[in-house]
């Protein structure tokens, strides 16, 4: 059985299609591992393989997928890491999960996350923190920490996460796997329990770049239920590139300078990866993204503002937790939300409510939107000269549990390098670039909207040249 879990998802699908592996056996191998999860990566695990054939004819071959808790899955707990939704089983399934299922990737389990995707360490989950499989005293990153840890530890062949301001890329980096945030609008948000609607995107967390391409191909496309989703131009191609000849990579000095707080070990790995890229034929130059250092400030106004409205529906009236209010409506509302939401969620609801308040809107939300536009323009200008912008994914490697829980600003800085791309709505991928003190480091490539296939190609060439060994946490 242990041989099965050493296969990437693409390899496993190939074997199933060739009749060498039974989809049910593969499912059961992962199911058993997920069920005995020591990382707290799962909040729910399927009890048995689905009855619908062995998936051999479907494009994804029946290879099961772990899904972040915030995706609605019909009849299966979908709690978005929050006590306020404890035990909530939605009556419908999110579009991307349904698309993956229909393409032959059945649901293996639901993965732990920061509450409502608000966090960078997975310590904000209402269902306990997730442990990093490289070192269980450390965080896996967040908010898709359960998805990242599950894939890195071989508890799932691959997983779906969501990225609002780095929530796929940063945990992928900290867990030594591949994570891709697609172009905003590439994947339907229907059925994703919203954090910040103008930023949220679903994307793959996988063992390698090929798996990311394979999964993404079956996630993208316009959904009539999501007005902000778009027809994806063309198909996501299987990456085949083995070099980077002719590619121009820009290193934004505004992000990678002193302000980013990049740890020496991370910088070392980043520089080494740039050297690999150069060897593969890429040209590397520094570039400017002058407004990008303001991205984090703008993000922490826009995202909480949207969240303050998105989370208003958790009021105890229709579903989820209700705490009795002694016959008074407002008392019921406040008790329910007092008990149901964690501290970080409350902090962001208050931030967002304040930012939208009469008299403050222009100064905060309005200004933040202007900054967002400037950042988008910065990237546009940069992409006139460069194919991709490259940075480390996270300024640091996985940190100790509890190290930053008392300092929200230090926690927010984890996403300094990831948030600009989120605000610009452009795709970005994180691949493992090596280890620093035994902990994985992520390398981020960002491209213009809908450049996913080219981005995956470049990431594929780098991945081959780097030769990162991510097998350790699977043992």
């Amino acid at each position: 059985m242990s041989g099965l879990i050493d296969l990437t998802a693409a390899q496993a699908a190939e074997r199933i299609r060739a009749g060498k592996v039974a989809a049910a056996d593969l499912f059961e191998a992962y199911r058993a591992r997920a069920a005995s999860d020591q990382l707290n990566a799962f909040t729910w695990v399927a009890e048995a393989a689905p009855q619908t054939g062995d998936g051999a004819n479907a494009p994804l071959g029946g290879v099961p997928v772990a899904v972040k808790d915030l995706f609605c899955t019909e009849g299966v707990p979908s709690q978005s890491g929050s006590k306020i939704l404890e035990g909530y089983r939605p009556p419908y399934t999110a579009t991307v999960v349904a698309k993956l299922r229909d393409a032959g990737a059945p649901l293996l389990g639901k993965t732990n996350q920061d509450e409502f995707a608000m966090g960078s360490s997975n310590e904000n989950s209402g269902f306990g923190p997730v442990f990093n499989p490289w070192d269980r005293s450390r965080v896996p990153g967040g908010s898709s920490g359960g998805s990242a840890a599950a894939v890195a530890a071989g508890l799932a062949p691959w997983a779906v996460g969501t990225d609002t301001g780095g929530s796929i890329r940063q945990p992928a980096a900290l867990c030594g796997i591949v994570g891709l945030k697609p172009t905003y609008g590439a994947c339907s948000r229907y059925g994703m329990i919203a954090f910040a609607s103008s930023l949220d995107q679903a994307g793959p967390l996988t063992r390698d770049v090929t798996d990311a391409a394979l999964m993404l191909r079956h996630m993208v496309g316009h959904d009539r239920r999501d007005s902000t989703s778009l027809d994806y131009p063309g198909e996501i191609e299987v990456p085949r590139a083995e070099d980077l000849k002719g590619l121009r990579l820009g290193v934004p000095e505004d992000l990678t300078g002193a302000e980013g707080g990049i740890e020496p070990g991370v910088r070392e790995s980043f520089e080494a990866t740039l050297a690999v890229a150069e060897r593969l034929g890429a040209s590397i130059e520094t570039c400017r993204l002058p407004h990008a250092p303001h991205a984090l400030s703008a993000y922490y106004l826009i995202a909480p503002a949207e969240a303050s409205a998105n989370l208003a529906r958790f009021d105890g009236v229709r579903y989820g937790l209700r705490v009795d209010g002694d016959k008074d409506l407002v008392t019921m509302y406040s008790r329910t939300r007092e008990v149901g939401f964690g501290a970080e969620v409350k902090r962001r609801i208050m931030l967002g409510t304040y930012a939208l308040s009469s008299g403050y809107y222009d100064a905060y939300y309005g200004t933040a939107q202007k900054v967002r536009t400037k950042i988008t323009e910065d990237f546009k200008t940069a992409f006139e000269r460069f194919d991709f912008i490259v940075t480390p994914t996270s300024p640091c490697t996985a940190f100790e549990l509890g190290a930053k829980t008392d300092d929200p600003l230090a926690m927010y800085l984890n996403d300094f390098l990831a948030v600009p791309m989120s605000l610009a709505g452009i795709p970005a991928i994180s691949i493992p670039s090596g280890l620093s003190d035994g902990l994985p480091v992520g390398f981020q490539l960002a491209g213009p909207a809908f450049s996913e296939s080219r981005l995956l190609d470049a990431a594929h060439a780098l991945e081959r040249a780097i030769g990162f060994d991510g097998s350790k946490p699977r043992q």
Partner: protein
Amino acid sequence: MSTTSTSTAYEPVIGLEIHVQLDTRTKMFCGCRLSFNDPPNIHTCPTCLGLPGALPVVNERAIHFGIMIGLALGCDIAERSLFHRKNYFYPDLPKGYQISQYDVPLCRGGRLGDVRIHRVHLEEDAAKLNHLGTSGRIHGSDRSWVDFNRGGTPLVEIVTEPDISSPEQAREWLILLRTTLQQLGVSDVDMSQGSLRCDANVSIRPAGSTRLGTKTELKNMNSFAFLERGVRAEIERQTHLLEQGEAVVQETLHFDPVSGGLTPLRSKEEAHDYRYFPEPDLVPLVVGEEMMTAARADMPVELPAERAVRFERELGLHADTARLFAFRAELGDYFERALNAAGADGSRGNGGAALEPAELSNWIPQLVERIGSDADPATSNVTPESLAALATMVKAKEVSRDAAREVLTLLVNEGGDPRAIVEREGLGAITAEDNGLAEIVDKAIASDPAAAEQVRAGNMKAIGPLVGYVMRETKGRADGGEITRLIRERLQG
């Protein structure tokens, strides 16, 4: 327009905010069917229940209707408008925000009749709350339940400029708006069922002043009569306050149609900072030429306001009658059918002058008076053709005005042909040429020599009793003018 009974030292300034439920097949942002009086919570889905993860999708038909309303009201239709989130907590609002248009609405400007339109925008209706217990409100109720069938119904909000200056004008204008919307076919516009709801902003100021006074907002006026009564009560209340040297406080008032009283809504229910921001789940609403063309194609040939103008200018109807017929389309339709019949019928009967539309129009209120003021004359026993025939007979002096009223009553009761009824009942006019009439005139003069003497002396006021005598004797079959002429001929030579 008549004036109110309130003090003339102040003049009211009134603006209306009207919510119209659109008669689309499905809700504003999801595919659930619209319904009325169905079992609760059967027309629901993740979107209109505000379930986690569900997203709104704009109903194209609602946009189409919104554009039609904008065109009918002469608004500028925005090529690009935005939906916002209006945030507040209430159990009838499942998402904790209402999706509505805010500072970039679909339509701006415009005019209907003599009232300017400020803006028209699209939004979604709230669900329906039902409270158990004596309070009838959510505060202090034993238990409340929510019916989400109504939640998400497409609404158009129409906001007027404060151009209305009396409760009567407010009522009349709202009737015009209702007829306009009815004609467009975009809504049931039934105030008793809540598909047309009206709030009023009321302030008063010293007559002739151009500054606006402090306004109050009146809610819950769910009939045309309640609107008029509520606004009148509020004008009286504000006038009283100012006359006492007190100030009007800006507040929202609830009109109780039973007691006629106005009670302030609890400040908790109105003190909101709605924290509007652009709805990130929707893209901007772009109205292309194609949508404009489609809306124009669905517009009725003539809207009520245009019809009133035509009735007055082209047909010479009195302004009040023109408006009445235009605003109550069933009256206008009946009138126009009768007018056609009069034309086809040879309205120049007996060589007399043509029947003027204004003369014909006077018979419609007569008919309405007999069938009930809210009834549609088209459903009565009186066909437009027979009303036209009757009016033509009066014009030709074949039947007197009084006798014709009697004929009309008979027509209302039994239907049929007015000419046959006149013959059957012997109600045909007695004319001067008729010797019988001359004889009756002589008898009248003989019966009241004193009056006759005064008329002879030139005092025409005294002719009344003599005319009355003839009318009684002829059972109203003789024309009053004709009788007067005959009496003067006899007495004044």
